[in-house]
């Protein structure tokens, strides 16, 4: 019986998703292609969130934490300064805390030609 229960629970784990992504819009848009490197990335959330870590990966190689600067409060809109790392795909991975205590995270990307 234990085996059956275990198998059932593994099944649930497999279908589970850590998805709590209340990110409304981003600039550049997710999956957008832009001709020029933006000076900053804008993130607009559906509710108040405190960002705790945002990292950016360029062309699947260089990864760095973005500077949250003074934006360390619960708010809806964030503007994070960008470093030009050249053409290619930029993947932004963010983590944060909702004001209800829920951990939130998500990813979006854009391409610079």
């Amino acid at each position, binding site marked *: *019986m*234990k085996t059956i*229960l275990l198998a*059932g*629970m593994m099944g*649930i*784990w*497999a*279908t*589970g*998703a*850590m*998805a*709590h992504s209340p990110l409304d819009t981003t600039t550049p848009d997710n999956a957008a292609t832009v001709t020029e490197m933006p000076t900053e990335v804008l993130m607009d959330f559906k509710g108040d969130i*405190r960002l*705790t*870590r945002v*990292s950016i990966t360029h062309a699947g190689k260089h990864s760095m934490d973005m500077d949250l600067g003074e934006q360390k409060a619960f708010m809806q809109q964030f503007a994070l300064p960008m470093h030009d790392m050249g053409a290619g795909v930029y993947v932004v*991975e963010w*983590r*944060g*805390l909702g*004001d*209800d*205590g829920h*951990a939130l*995270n998500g990813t979006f990307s854009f391409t610079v030609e």
Partner: protein
Amino acid sequence: MPDAFGLAAIVTKFALYLGVMTAAGTVIATLMFRLDRTRGLAAAFAALGLMATVLAFSLRGANLTGDVSGMTDPEMLGLLWSTPVGTALLLRLVGLGLLIAGLFMGRIGTWVSVFGGGIAIWSFDHVGHVSGRDTTLLYIALTLHLLAFALWIGVLTPLKRLASSSGTYALAADVGHRFGIIATITVPALIIAGGYMGYVLVGSLDALIGTGYGQALIIKVLLVGLLLVLAAANKLRFIPALRLGDSAAANHLSKSISVEWLVILAVLGTTAVLTTNLTLPT
């Protein structure tokens, strides 16, 4: 499949539920049925609950940074402290602390322990899928659901112990009989409260069948159904037989309780997955 932190969060949540529910249930059962020798049991599960409380809080810190450093990062933990997660942490530490302290305070201490257990159980109203909704009825339902289940869990081990020695068969029959009477109220309350919460949180038959959350809930309901069958066998067959002095019934009761425990562990495990790793259908 969740990452290592996701799995750690589920295992910790499972230990938290097991610790808090069993500790609180044991002291409530001790008060209601005037049980002896339950102090070690309650203390051990309260200690498990305390460890899981701290670890669960710390793991939430890791969730914020995405690595181990978050587990001890003062900024991240301070941030969590300012949210309802911090309130729940405080209630669990105080509640379980009182529960343990009460165990060493003699007769009046049982009330202190029960009060502490109540606070620890109440902490679950502050975080998770039920919190943040303006439905008082939902909070009442969750609290009733947890109290009724805690009592059920709490009575099992002492009852099994009484049924394991011929000197206490009569006492086992008596406690089992009295719990059986109370359970005719608490178990339907548990089911109605659970059904109501499921209805509010899941919302539709499509969501029940079509989402991971709904499917996990179905598994939980099936497990509880199995638990009810076992409990019915105890109440309708083994306890009455034991009251009539049938010593073989004590053995059956003891084995039945062991199986009940296995199913309860599965119920708590499924609940940990539900509350940690699955999002509510929208």
